[in-house]
């Protein structure tokens, strides 16, 4: 039973609260180091963006036929990462998985920051970003409107909705904890700051009761988004007739991949976090174990998807499909990346059959890192290796990224890191009330068992 324990130690609620709010009051030097690094990354991001907008998309490696490349790969990658948050908090809430309480805040925050990045790439990707608002339906003097038969307006709708709902969900979950922070803060400034965002929360029975209703409702609404968002993203490709894109398997395949990469990112954030701020009591091996199991499941589903799309390409008998899946990807100009991708995404998760590795933080950390790379490569494979050799051999051409492409990718990671560091520095990183509630229930359970015994 011990290995299932979701909470260690039995310090009082006050002690627990303080230990979980500790990051808000004192900053380890490690934080500063990481912060400086991620700020540097952000600067690179900003400069790459400036360069792109000042000179044009030509500063990237894109060409005809490969009109989409790095930026869209990054976009899909970040969106995918953004899936774990809602999955963990909303999905598991509905499934009444108590263990989510320790990790959902981090996951949600990660979701939001990932989406901030993701949302930026389609905009940058436009040839004339200053006209981005033409994708929104509004009564223009031109009298023309967006075309809702295209999957790109769907994308706009899906991503904005997902971002909004995630943000609302995150904030709603935060309010009681912000109140705790308000009441725990020492400096008046902090008190006021948290006080303002806590909206004057008092924790009255009535507030809690209505709050629970609303929170579950929001969770129930967010859950279908987990499925829909990446399904819609996948339609950006699936509604095209390009071999390698035009595939009915895409929506589930993308969703699985998204959650897969998202969980990997969650682990990459949680593992250092619990170490740095001694959250081991709250974020226990049991949590990591569960996430690892989820990743294993997702990884297997993904492997199945790979197998299926390849099989279907062969089974279709279509020359172009077969060429893309059976030749261009495995043996074409990008074959190396393809095989690295397959190895990372298909083989890596199988280490999680071992219970020991599921609980070994180094193993989890390295595996997650590998999977994140693998998932980026998967999107690259889907986009670039489909485009660079399509129907007419005359238009086939190799694609090579420019420094700006790499700058944007690295920079977005920097921005993500910066936002996340600020988050753990200023926002309660663990859902206090939920953990306390969990403690109470576990305690009562134990008491009950004792009584029963």
């Amino acid at each position, binding site marked *: 039973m011990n290995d299932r324990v979701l909470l260690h130690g039995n310090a009082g609620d006050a002690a627990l609260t303080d230990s979980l709010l500790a990051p808000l009051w004192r900053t380890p030097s490690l934080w500063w180091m990481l912060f400086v690094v991620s700020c540097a990354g952000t600067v690179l991001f900003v400069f790459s963006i400036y360069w792109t907008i000042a000179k044009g998309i030509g500063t990237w490696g894109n060409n005809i036929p490969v009109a989409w490349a790095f930026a869209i790969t990054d976009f899909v990658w970040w969106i995918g990462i953004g899936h774990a948050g809602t999955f963990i908090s909303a999905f598991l809430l509905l499934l009444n998985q108590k263990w989510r309480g320790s990790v959902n805040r981090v996951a949600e925050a990660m979701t939001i920051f990932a989406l901030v990045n993701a949302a930026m790439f389609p905009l940058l990707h436009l040839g004339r970003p200053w006209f981005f608002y033409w994708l929104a339906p509004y009564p223009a003097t031109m009298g023309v409107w967006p075309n809702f038969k295209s999957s790109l307006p769907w994308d706009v*709708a899906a991503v904005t909705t997902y971002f909004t709902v995630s943000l609302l969900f995150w904030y709603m979950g935060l309010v009681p904890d912000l109140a705790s922070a308000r009441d725990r803060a020492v400096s008046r400034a902090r008190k006021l700051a948290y006080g303002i965002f806590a909206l004057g929360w*008092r*924790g009255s029975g009535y507030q809690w009761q*209505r709050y629970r209703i609303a929170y579950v409702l*929001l969770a129930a609404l967010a859950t279908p988004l987990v499925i829909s968002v990446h399904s819609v993203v996948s339609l950006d490709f699936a509604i095209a007739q390009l071999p390698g894109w035009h595939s009915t398997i895409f929506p589930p395949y993308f969703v699985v991949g998204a959650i897969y990469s998202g969980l990997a990112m969650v682990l990459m954030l949680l593992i250092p976090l619990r170490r740095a701020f001694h959250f081991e009591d709250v974020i226990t091996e049991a949590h990591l174990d569960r996430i690892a199991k989820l990743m294993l499941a997702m990884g297997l589903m993904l492997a199945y998807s790979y197998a299926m799309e390849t099989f279907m390409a062969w089974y279709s008998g279509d020359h172009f499909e077969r060429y893309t899946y059976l030749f261009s990807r495995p043996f074409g100009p990008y074959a190396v990346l393809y095989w690295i991708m397959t190895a990372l995404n298909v083989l890596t998760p199988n280490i999680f059959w071992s219970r020991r590795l599921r609980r070994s933080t180094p193993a989890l950390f390295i595996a997650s890192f590998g999977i994140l790379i693998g998932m980026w490569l998967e999107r690259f494979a889907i986009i670039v290796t489909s485009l660079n050799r399509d129907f007419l051999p005359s238009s086939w051409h190799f694609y090579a990224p420019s420094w700006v492409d790499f700058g944007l990718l690295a920079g977005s990671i920097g921005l993500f890191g910066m936002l996340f560091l600020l988050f753990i520095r200023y926002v309660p990183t663990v859902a206090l009330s939920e953990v306390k509630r969990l403690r109470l229930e576990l305690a009562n359970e134990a008491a009950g068992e004792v009584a029963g015994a």
Partner: protein
Amino acid sequence: MRDRDWPAGSFAAEFADANALVAAVRSLRARGYSGIETYSPMPLPELDATLRFRKSRLPALVFVGGVAGGAISYFIQWYADVYAYPLNLGGRPVNAVTAFIIPTFEGTILGAALVAFFGLWFVLRLPTYWHSVFDLPGFERATVDRYWVAVSGEDARAGAEVTPNELRALGALRVVVLDGAEDAGAAGGVGLEGAR
């Protein structure tokens, strides 16, 4: 009477842990108290029955919000692509229902979610930055590890002689009598939600 600015002569008692509070509230109720409200750092579903909240209208509102969101988004698409400027795009039909489903779905979710979020704050009348319970000594621990119960001074059953003793008997660490004087003419923004 629930969680408004408390009238003069109301009582508030602090408890050390959740189970004590739950027990106390249940017994108060058993003794016929009605104007009761609790304050806790965590939700206490156990007390839902005891405190007899009115059924929430939020789910209904959210449903309406969802329907409205969906309707609006389909209408926008229909207006834009079918009515305002129909175009022949790749020989596809102008009223492409199959295609319009997706933004409609997203609109539904968005509408519902917005209602659920803002609806909650409206129902709870938040933000409310000033509230009389914040005057209670040591109330700052109500969001950390202490559990409060408040009994309205207007409750027929309440009385300065009996109530504090009863609360202490139930294990209250301390009982405070809310001094109504400063509450005179309390900001009326807070309504009488959830009365029986």
